[in-house]
């Protein structure tokens, strides 16, 4: 089969345009790859979660109580709308792992005697423990793997002061723990935090919960009124120290998965439209110029009898071929990016399987959008080629019209040289191209600003959370409330220099219809380790009366300083009161309410109590302290804040590296794509002018100044615009991230703006030099002799 002559022209034109086509194709490829990755991963995660949740009967509602009789389960099951319910015993343990100096901690969950019906652990290796066994347990596969445990291995746990020796019979995964944070941790800790499943009888024995439960999971019927269900469950559990039921959205693992999905959705909503938009602009600009250049060829084709539609399709095809190449590159990059994302997910999230992110339709949708973007970009040029009257096309084009205006008045005063006037008039002659080129370049800046700001913001989060607010080295979480004497006991632990108590009281705070379940943290007046910060992040003293609320909580409840909040006690205490809001505090991780220990005790009409201890330690004596903690009775868990901070920083710096490479690439491709194509088109339009100037005696450098001056001016205009757009995207991201789990502050530094500008200006310079090389090599005298 022979290719038609017009198709041969198409292929040869494409080859001639290869550098410009490649620049466009790369921008498009970026858009396709990110769109594909975003859409593919969102769908893969959604499908995986749904599948996993359904197979393992992940519950819809979760609740805990201090101690509820097992008979209550029947009342829960009797609520209309409840499909099934499962009662469990859960408790915290400290682990003494052979070969590990620091105490690890764990969460014990009972396996109902009749077998779990909800949140069923998925066996990875070994077997379930025998029902009658006292020491057999299942552990998460990740914990086993991180510590090198296999079925049959043993480790020690201290529960309520009792030392147990546990035998691993099997390893599992659970839909409840796809993402697991240890208490007080900010990042998963596979080796140091275990989820342990134990037969019901054994667990009840360990935590003294025979005939009782403290954890409830409920699966609802599809048509159930969720809010009403939660109220009913709360009512049933309230007498038994219930601290409020919640839906999946507050279940930690699920909430993190949703946050990840939101982030992916945001990524796909922001970046691909920018990249596809730039593709539209570049195709429009380049094809517009080609049609202008090929005016007489278009006339010829029409004279030969080619139809308008055939000529329009010829130019559309040129854009579509460029797009097809970009789409193929994008598919490959997208597949690579997604497999990288999948690996990253496998590291942070514990899935038994991950649905393949790229079904054929993800490729198809991404490819189609890429082709449509190029098609839209080509429409104007194709239309112009189609409607060009053949007799007009055969005659030489009318010179572009320039007019006197504001610029001339200014230039007379400022004595702007003629070469500069050429540059300025060129910019004014094509205002849309000027505007869109600047906008395109500014988006390159904006993407860098928006990606780099995250690093500064996370620095601010770390600074606020660890250096300004929670300055203690370690926090010991007690298994039970203790009197204040626990402070003196802790002071005797080796290496402990300072101890400050904290008492966490579970409550429901409400203002009118708005309510929030949380714990009020009470601390001693004048405490120096765990501090509260005002909105400007300056330490603020706990008030003698009233409560401090974190800004997010205050916003949720719709209150400010001076307002009253209604506080209903949950857990083992009952009662309610009104507390005045003394001030609003800054806090990026979680939400919080803070009071003075003595004020709260007075409100409760009891002696001050303690649920956790914040320690300042002599770090040289850390090994002794860690050894002591392994056998400390009544310790639920210990949190080393330095470790938490370090693992957080490590994770961030790893992600930052990935992000930096990714966004630097995107930004450079956009900038080079826009700058290179812009300069090439100017070169093509000005070739004859520049040749004339060379004949008049201008040097190569002077001629280049005219050509590249326009690009330079556009790049400079783009900088402040890019900062502005980048700042706006950053603001949108900050708003998008805002949740009860965490928030990030909007931190935009001069350094960030400067870096973004340096990178993009370097890319513009590289593009300009490529074009200048072309200009230097061109035989400008020959250009003069050819007819346009």
């Amino acid at each position, binding site marked *: 089969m022979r290719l*038609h002559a017009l198709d041969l*022209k198409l292929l040869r034109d494409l080859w001639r345009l290869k550098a410009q086509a490649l620049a466009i194709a790369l921008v498009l490829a970026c858009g396709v790859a990110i769109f594909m990755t975003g859409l593919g991963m969102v769908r893969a995660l959604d499908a995986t979660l749904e599948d996993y949740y359904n197979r393992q009967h992940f519950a819809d509602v979760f609740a805990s109580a201090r101690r509820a009789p097992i008979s209550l389960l029947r009342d829960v099951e009797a609520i209309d709308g409840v499909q099934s319910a499962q009662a469990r015993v859960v408790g915290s343990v400290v682990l003494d792992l052979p070969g590990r100096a620091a105490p690890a901690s764990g969460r014990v969950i009972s396996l109902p005697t009749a077998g779990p019906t909800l949140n069923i652990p998925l066996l990875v290796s070994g077997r379930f423990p025998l029902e009658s066994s006292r020491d057999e347990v299942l552990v998460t596969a990740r914990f086993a793997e991180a510590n090198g445990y296999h079925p049959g291995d043993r480790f020690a746990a201290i529960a309520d002061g009792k030392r147990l020796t546990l035998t691993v019979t099997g390893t599992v995964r659970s839909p409840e723990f796809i993402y697991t944070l240890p208490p007080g941790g900010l990042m998963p800790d596979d080796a140091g935090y275990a989820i342990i499943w134990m037969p019901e009888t054994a667990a009840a024995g360990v935590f003294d919960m025979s005939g009782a439960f403290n954890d409830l999971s409920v699966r609802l019927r599809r048509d159930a009124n969720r809010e009403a269900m939660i109220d009913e469950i709360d009512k049933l559990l309230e007498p038994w120290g219930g601290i409020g039921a919640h839906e999946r959205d507050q279940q930690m693992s699920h909430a993190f998965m949703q946050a990840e999905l939101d982030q992916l959705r945001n990524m796909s909503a922001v970046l691909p439209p920018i990249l596809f938009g730039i593709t539209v602009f570049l195709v429009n600009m380049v094809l517009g110029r080609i049609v202008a250049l090929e005016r007489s060829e278009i006339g010829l084709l029409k004279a*030969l009898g*080619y139809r308008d539609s055939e000529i329009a399709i010829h130019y559309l095809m040129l854009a579509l071929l460029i797009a097809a190449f970009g789409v193929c590159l994008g598919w490959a990059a997208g597949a690579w990016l997604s497999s990288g994302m999948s690996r990253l997910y496998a590291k942070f999230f514990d899935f038994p399987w991950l649905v393949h992110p790229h079904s054929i339709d993800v490729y198809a949708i991404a490819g189609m959008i890429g082709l449509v973007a190029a098609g839209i970009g080509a429409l104007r040029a194709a239309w112009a080629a189609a409607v060009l009257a053949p007799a007009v096309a055969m005659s030489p084009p009318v010179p572009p019209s320039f007019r006197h205006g504001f610029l001339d008045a200014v230039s007379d005063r400022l004595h702007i040289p003629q070469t500069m006037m050429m540059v300025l008039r060129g910019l004014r002659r094509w205002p849309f191209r000027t505007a869109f080129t600047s906008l395109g370049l500014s988006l390159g800046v904006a993407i860098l600003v928006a990606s780099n700001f995250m690093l500064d913001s996370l620095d601010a989060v770390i600074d606020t959370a660890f250096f300004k607010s929670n300055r203690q080295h370690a926090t010991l979480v007690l298994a039970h409330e203790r009197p204040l004497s626990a402070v003196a006991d802790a002071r005797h632990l080796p290496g402990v220099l300072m101890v400050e108590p904290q008492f966490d009281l579970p409550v429901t705070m409400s203002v009118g219809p708005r309510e929030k379940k949380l714990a009020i943290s009470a601390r001693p007046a004048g405490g120096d380790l765990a501090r509260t910060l005002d909105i400007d992040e300056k330490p603020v003293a706990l008030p003698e009366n009233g409560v401090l609320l974190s800004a997010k909580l205050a916003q949720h409840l719709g209150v400010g300083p001076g307002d009253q909040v209604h506080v209903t006690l949950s857990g083992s205490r009952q009662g309610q009161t009104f507390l005045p809001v003394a001030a609003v505090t800054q806090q990026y991780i979680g939400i919080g309410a803070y009071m003075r220990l003595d004020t709260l005790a007075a409100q409760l009409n009891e002696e001050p109590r303690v649920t956790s201890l914040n320690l300042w330690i002599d770090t040289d004596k850390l090994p002794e302290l860690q050894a002591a903690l392994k056998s400390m009775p009544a310790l639920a868990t210990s949190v080393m804040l330095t470790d938490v901070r370090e693992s957080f920083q490590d994770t961030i710096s790893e992600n930052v590296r990935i992000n930096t490479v990714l966004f630097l690439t995107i930004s450079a491709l956009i900038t080079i794509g826009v700058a290179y194509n812009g300069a090439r088109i100017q070169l093509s339009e000005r070739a004859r002018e520049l040749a004339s100037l060379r004949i008049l005696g201008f040097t190569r450098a002077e001629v280049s100044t005219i050509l590249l001056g326009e690009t330079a001016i556009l790049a400079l205009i783009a900088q402040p615009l890019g900062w502005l757009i980048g700042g706006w995207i950053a603001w949108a991201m900050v708003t998008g991230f805002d949740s009860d789990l965490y928030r990030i502050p909007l931190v935009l530094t001069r350094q960030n703006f400067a870096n973004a500008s340096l990178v993009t200006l370097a890319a513009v310079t590289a593009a300009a030099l490529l074009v200048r090389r072309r200009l230097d090599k061109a035989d400008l005298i020959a250009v003069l002799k050819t007819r346009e």
Partner: protein
Amino acid sequence: MTHVLKKSIVSIMSENVVSKDIPAFRTRAITKVYGGHGTAKVHALDGVDLDLPEGELVVLLGPSGSGKSTLLNILGGLDHATSGQAWFRDQDLTTMTDRQLTRYRRDNVGFVFQFYNLVASLTAAENVALVTDIAPNPMPAEEALALVGLQDRQHHFPAQMSGGEQQRVAIARAIAKRPGVLLCDEPTGALDSKTGTAVLAALEDVNTQFGTTTLVITHNAGIRKMAHRVIRFQDGRVVEIEENKTRIRAHEVTW
């Protein structure tokens, strides 16, 4: 080559069987006005009546702006007349839509331009194929190139050929569709006398051997002696029509 030529003549002649009673082109009171709406009106054609018999070689003479190219554009279906009527054989060109004009050009008209208008990215054969790809009954591109003596240059790009060769490729492209009429706008305008003569010889061959009605615009008064008929233009009007009793051959044309 003679063998190829004879074979082609037979096949092309068989395509061009038309009634000699109807002229190839007729025009009645054709005008073309440019401008208006604030700018000065220019009467490029100001009431032209012509009858051009089938099979003739017609030379259009006249100074720049006298209306020759405008008439050629209208007869070639590239432009619309402002008023009046023009027929190709029995088809009224002045009532045709753009789509019908495209069809008319595709099926009947071969163009040759002063600046050759070859597509730079296509070889000689591929430039000819531009036409043979879409014409209803074309001759093979190689055959068209052989007719203008360029069978050895078919894989050369325009930049690798002389001006005269490029113009002969353009002629090959024009005749490859076996057109009813061949319209040439200054075909030798950019050529020296030697290459110009070769191009004229190619046009002469096409006209005499295939009977293709051929209109040639030229500034070169020497060419008029080749024509059956010479039409002189001035200010958008036909000022003189001259029929040559005796015609000279292309190689006798003086420059």
